[in-house]
């Protein structure tokens, strides 16, 4: 660098600093004056709209590069994702046969109607968006960030969404539940909306029908104490689930007791095990005797017929659901609840083949209603 240029450097730096300071002051005065119109009703200028969308697309695609999607063609995963989509996403994003709510349509930016116009995101990009949400758009992050398994269920469903019509969508999202049309009086006076009324049954079934997805637990005939504890743990977030927490947190007053009593009194229905794994000797041994050499206690000591009503009964439960919970505990999730604190260390001692064996064993057992025991 020449001597002359070196001498000019301080002057250039001074200009740059005062320029930046002036810009900051101008921006502050702009915001302070209130000239900028924050109205959602007026929309963005086209150029700004393009610029924001351009930045958003690039940000999502950069951050999604570190993610690898698992296999997403399991029908259980798709059904679980569909049922959650119906309650959690359709209000803003619409669904086949369900238009975007007029309220949501007047947000800025207005949420895309995913049934008709979903951008060609990759699975990993969709996962990132559903998990983290998008700033300044109203798209929220997932309630339980650590539950990637739940988020992938939603992505599995979103992949199927473009090929669904209204009828196949309802079959997927609402399962066997028949929502009876509410009377005029009920519509006029009941606070909860009719979509919410069937919220539990969408996933868990009701009356004589069980869950449509093997990833969802069968609640029929479970002890009410266990069901109430689970709902309260979901509601306060100590048991993490982006699907269950918003629903459980909505329950007020005596809802928890009434719901628990309802499911506890239903007769458990055999749903055929979908794992295809035959119950093994190892599964039976773990359940009945445990594996003392590896400090694994027998499951039946707590989950058998004589266990406390605070514990779930496992006979006839969905294997995929049980295995999923064991893996969550082993990975250190929801270990702070009363039951989780007991199960987490035990789950960590189970190998993957152990998890498959013992869940297949319980899934193949005939369930017995907890009410049969005093």
């Amino acid at each position, binding site marked *: 660098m020449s001597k002359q240029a070196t001498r000019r450097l301080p002057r250039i730096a001074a200009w740059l600093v005062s320029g930046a300071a002036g810009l900051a002051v101008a921006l502050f005065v702009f915001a302070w004056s209130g000239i900028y119109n924050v109205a959602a009703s007026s929309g963005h200028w086209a150029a700004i709209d393009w610029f924001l969308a351009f930045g958003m697309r690039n940000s999502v695609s950069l951050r999604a590069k570190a993610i690898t999607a698992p296999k997403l063609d399991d029908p259980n995963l798709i059904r679980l994702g569909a049922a959650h989509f119906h309650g959690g996403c359709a209000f803003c994003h619409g669904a086949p046969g369900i238009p975007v709510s007029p309220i949501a349509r007047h947000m800025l930016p207005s949420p895309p109607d995913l049934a008709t116009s979903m951008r060609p995101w990759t699975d990993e990009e969709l996962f990132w968006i559903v998990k983290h949400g998008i700033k300044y758009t109203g798209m929220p992050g997932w309630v339980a960030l650590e539950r990637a398994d739940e988020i992938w269920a939603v992505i599995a469903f979103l992949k199927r969404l473009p090929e669904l019509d209204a009828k196949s969508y309802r079959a997927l999202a609402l399962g066997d539940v028949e929502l009876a049309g509410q009377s005029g009086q009920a519509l006029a006076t009941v606070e909860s909306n009719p979509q919410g009324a069937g919220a539990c049954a969408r996933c868990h079934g009701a009356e004589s029908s069980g869950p449509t997805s093997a990833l969802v637990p069968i609640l029929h005939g479970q002890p009410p104490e266990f069901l109430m504890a689970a709902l309260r743990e979901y509601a306060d977030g100590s048991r993490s689930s982006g699907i269950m927490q918003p629903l459980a947190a909505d329950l007020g007053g005596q809802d928890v007791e009434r719901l628990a009593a309802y499911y506890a009194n239903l007769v458990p229905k055999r749903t055929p095990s979908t794992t295809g794994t035959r119950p093994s000797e190892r599964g039976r041994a773990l359940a009945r005797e445990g594996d003392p050499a590896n400090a694994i*206690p*027998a499951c039946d*000591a*707590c989950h058998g017929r*004589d266990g*406390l009503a605070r514990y779930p009964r496992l006979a006839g439960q969905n294997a995929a659901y049980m295995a999923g919970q064991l893996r969550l505990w082993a990975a250190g999730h929801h270990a702070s609840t*009363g*039951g989780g604190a007991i199960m*987490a*260390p035990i789950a960590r001692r189970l190998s993957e083949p152990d998890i498959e064996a013992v869940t297949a064993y319980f899934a193949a057992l005939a369930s017995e209603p907890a009410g049969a025991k005093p």
Partner: protein
Amino acid sequence: MTARQSCWYLPVATSLLGGCGWHQSVLNPEGQEALRLAQLAWLLFGFGAAVLAIVILAAVAAVRGPEPVRAVLASARMVVWAGIFFPAVALTGLLGYGVWVTRASIADPGDGGQLRIVVTGEQWWWRVHYPQGAGPAIETANEIRIPVGRSIQFELRSADVIHSFWVPNLGGKVDMIPGRTTFLRLGADREGVFRGQCAEYCGGPHALMALEVIAMDSAAFDGWLQNQTRLASDPGSAIARRGRELFLGAGCGACHTVRGTAAGGTIGPDLTHLGARRSVGVDTAALSEASIARFIREGQHIKPGNRMPPFRIFAPDDLHAVATYLAALR
């Protein structure tokens, strides 16, 4: 002398006071085996001190001494005799003496007739088993009761990793090695409680893996042993009965045995006579209903990393009932 000058050595001197305790001190032998080890130790200290004094004198003489002394110290014969021959003879002699002195502590496993106690080190507690021949098995945990004045044969095992059994007041330290049985003979010359400690790092709460050897007079020991053979007593009160029901319903029996009930687990300590023990959670708290309740609920705070999950599911009344039941198991 100023106060400042007089105090510089105090931190060093006071830190040495830590060695003055009676507990877990090899310098306070309370049994024949420990006595022999202490004799050996004192002999070694004395011999080592004498050798050190001679070396220091020789070093001074080699620098400051008269010419003839320095010539002797610098000679090749001095190196051969004092540097090679003397250490070889002295160390060989000491080794022989050490083996001879401790020969009785390395118990002969073939010797029947005497009291045998099997101690198994587990992460992070001690399973204590009194073989009774044809009689009922006696199992307890973390405390070992022995009769005064008898030499007891210990069989030491490990269920997982290497532990080391050491009760310094009573004798030497012997490793517990997975897949092997090691032997140790110990005894106490007077009644008392002698603390022991796992002396080989075994992970997690190793530092809290302590035990107590309780030496009792012969008649009291026989009474204790007789009581241990009994099945668990029936709960005497309604609250204890409720405690038993909760204990079984909560699945405690999957890990713990209470002989005489459906609880037959072998993963954790046998609780058949928990109420007759001195402590809860491997010597971390004196035995009481409150400390039992606290260990059930907050065991991971009292002894972090232990294998028992915290049972926070109990309502306060229920927890009290379970603790009442367990404390009454005498």
